[in-house]
């Protein structure tokens, strides 16, 4: 195995161009599980944790190398909320938001927030420079994304207009160190429109667009609208049954969580 330990982004892109498809190693919290279980045996690794430019937070631009431990103190309310639910303190100390984006697991804790705030994923390569992809163009399936073999994830970029009235919640079967069975994020704008995103209920994070439209029409929702909102969210997700939960529970919980988060936003 060969390893590159670049200290600048351009060195990393250089290495990635030389070895397209080399495994990118950030916090290691996903990659090393696969290595330890013999599912992956990388021939070439590019280790990213020495690159200071990836570890910067600049307002609405969050470097891919920023750890969850740092994001627990983020000014973005829902991002801080979700960061606290990622793995364990040890995982949060090592794992990064870029790693979460790169792994593209349906259960990735950061993904519903990225979807709810309409984040762009900034990627870069030596030959083609910087690309910015809207989250929905980046996440393409279960653990699949639009990152090219010579690219590196650089940052998540949040639109300046995103309001701070945002709430996140995650259901896991135990109280800590748990993979989500359903997670949700709701962002409410001053004009009453909302963005509703869910995780672990489809191959990629999803937005509940019909439910959003319902609230756009009813910015001060009544009890019956709220009930319909929850129902609509449940209809819009496409979960599966697996060893962590069931389709019907995930559908049910998606609606319940989204409604609770909306109510929290409305209460402010």
């Amino acid at each position, binding site marked *: 195995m060969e390893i590159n330990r670049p200290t600048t982004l351009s060195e990393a892109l250089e290495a990635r161009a030389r070895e397209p498809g080399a495994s990118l190693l950030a916090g290691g919290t996903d990659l090393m599980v696969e290595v330890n279980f013999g599912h992956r045996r990388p021939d070439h690794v590019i280790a990213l944790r020495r690159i200071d430019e990836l570890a910067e937070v600049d307002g609405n631009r969050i470097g891919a190398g920023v750890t969850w431990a740092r994001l627990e103190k983020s000014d973005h309310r829902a991002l801080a909320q979700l960061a606290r639910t990622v793995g364990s303190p040890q995982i949060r100390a090592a794992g990064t938001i870029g790693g979460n984006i790169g792994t593209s697991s349906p259960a990735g804790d950061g993904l519903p927030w990225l979807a709810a705030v309409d984040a762009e994923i900034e990627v870069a390569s030596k030959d083609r420079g910087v690309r910015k992809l809207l989250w929905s163009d980046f996440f393409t399936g279960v653990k699949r994304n639009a990152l090219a073999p010579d690219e590196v994830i650089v940052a998540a970029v949040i639109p300046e207009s995103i309001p701070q009235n945002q709430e996140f919640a995650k259901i896991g079967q*135990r109280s800590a160190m748990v*993979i989500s069975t359903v997670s949700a994020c709701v962002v409410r704008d001053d004009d009453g429109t909302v963005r509703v995103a869910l995780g672990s209920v489809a191959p990629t994070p999803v937005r509940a667009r019909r439910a959003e439209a319902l609230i756009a029409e009813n910015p001060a929702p009544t009890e019956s609208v709220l009930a319909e909102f929850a129902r609509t969210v449940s209809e819009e997700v496409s979960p599966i049954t697996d060893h962590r939960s069931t389709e*019907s529970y995930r559908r049910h919980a998606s609606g319940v969580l989204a409604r609770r988060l909306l109510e929290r936003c409305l209460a402010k």
Partner: protein
Amino acid sequence: MTTSPTTRTRIRGGVGESPQRPDAIPKVTGNFAYASDLHADGMLWAATLRSPYARARITKLDTAPALTVGGVVAVITQQDVPGRRGFGMHVPDQPVLADGECNYWGEPIAVVAASDLETAKRGVAAIVIEYEVLEPLTDMEEADAADSQTRRMKVRRGDSEATGAVVVEGYYEVGQQDQAPLGNEAGLAIPDGEGGVDLYAVSQWVHSDHWQIYPCLDLEPEQVRCHPVGMGGAFGSREDVSMHIHLCMLALRTGRPVKMSFDRAESFVAHVHRHPARMWYRHEADTDGKLVKVQARLILDGGAYESSSNAVIGNAGYFAVGPYLCDNVFVDAVAVKTNNPPAGAMRGFGGVQTAFGHEAQMDRLADELGIDRLEMRRRNALGHGDPMSSSGQIIEGSLPTAQLIDELATMPLPEPLASDDPRHLPGGTGLTTERGQVRRGVGYGVTIKNLAFSEGFDDYSDARIAISSVGVEVYTAAAEVGQGMVTIIQQLVRDVLQMEQVAVVWSDTSVIGSAGSTSASRQTQMTGGATYQCAVELRQQILDEFAGDDLSTEGVWRDGDLIATLAEVCSGGMCEHEIRYRHPETFPTDENSQGNAHPAFAAAAHRAVVDVDPELGLVRVVQLDTVQDVGKILNPVAAVGQIEGGTLQGVGMAVLEELVVDKGVIKNPNFTDYLLPTFLDAPHVEVRFVEEPERWGPLGAKGIGEPPTISAGPAVAAAIRDATGRDLHRVPILPQHIAGV
């Protein structure tokens, strides 16, 4: 005659204190050697080829390609087993390696020894094997219908025509729990150069391993020596042989030390699990709430091989009613054989499963009759002098069930939920739930467990004590798995001999006889009893020899004078003593399971308080208060530790832990998806003891390992039912069950 000193040293660390464990400092500094830390010069590593199918015939097995991998030294299959081809705790029904067919997912087929673990794994991958895949038998009721079983047990006691004023019927299911000790299985076998072998491998009972291993190796008993090793927990998972015979075969084949150390995924398939169960109950009671008749049908899935299914289904049958009086009891219990992962011993074996059934039934009866749920149990409490509801055995020892219930009723309930900190709410930092969405529930679990081995088994523990001028050495083969046996032995021996320096010498199978298994809550009573009794007899021998009236660190005393120093005493050669300690005799029961099967019993009682978010089905176990029947407390801190730990394993079983097995395949053999309770899942546990001495064992102490695990889970399940009003009949209770979707 020696005349000084004239005052005896007051010793520390005797019975009733909580002295520091001798292994505590090595453990906190990382210096304690566990089996996985063992090393020998020139050692090889071994890895195992395991069946990828729950049931298959092996149509081709060619190990030669593995031997062409550089660094691979040896490969063994069933063809290489020199002696008896099978092993097993009760019957040797499990082949050492798959014998032409695979009967469960993960069954070992071949083992490769190589210069390092990676190479051994490459050797495994190089083995050429082909299978004819067969349809596995994985449904326990289908297995029962097909008469695929290890033991069928029926209890017939009293009048089958008896009827009560109220009747409740229920069906209950218990999922498959895993012991999941933190330390995975590991071992090292070292050939002695003379055809024999020394084995250092995880074990709850080295002599049982020994008895199973040497016939397979076709060696004389003394040529195989099984040594106790440091273990990261057990809870039943180290009672069965796993890697042991493979290691010995490879060490003998290669002439070199061979080590194995399982990772978590392999550990999950390589040790036996708790039996999953399906249970049908019908309880009848009179209008005062007295049980009139209990009928039950119990099926426990033992998986592919017998292991300890025989004892597990026995316990399920004998304790199907719980710690309650009932004159008319009819139970049909069966342990079936399937192609599921083998099940065996786990903390509380047999009793854990039925406890979920009988405790749910007691609540339903109480509700039907309008009687308080705890009072319902109080009215039926089984105690000293009563006949066991199943076997009719008169309880000759202590069984203060009623006192436990009375004490539990006096314990204060926690304050109502007043916090908005998410760590105090269901869903935790996931921020799912607000205080207004929470409903509180309270539930009870009162249970019973037999202590030590039953049904006529020749259950004993051998112990030897040697006194020298530098201190006392206690020789035992009892397995210290973390429970604190080592401290209990020291305390008991200190107390008797009045000598503070007591070292426990963990001894291999060639040095001392069996101490029996560290299971069935038996070591405090059995090896504690053996070492205590041995010390008492040794003390008496010394006093007799010197016509003294007291013994201490200084030596032998008479009328307040020191008449012989310890050095003088020890020069005489009588300072060593060995005994075999047995509990009161038990007997196999008759065809209706009537008779005196058990040497002792312990009751346990828990009250669970839970907060539930019913809409999302999320649970926070707030508090679990417990009263335990301990006989006599030898070490309060250790006792509380056992009870708190056992309690949390019960919580895990009630709401978190389950091996998800689909067509014989374990879907979650890892810690990401087999969910053990974390610090934030652990409730506050308030522990109280009832001390009513047992008729045997050291100073009346009882085993305390299993009872708390048995009563905690049903209490949690009951509390969730109480909070939600839902008729939850299966554990673990998952969010979708509570939410009803």
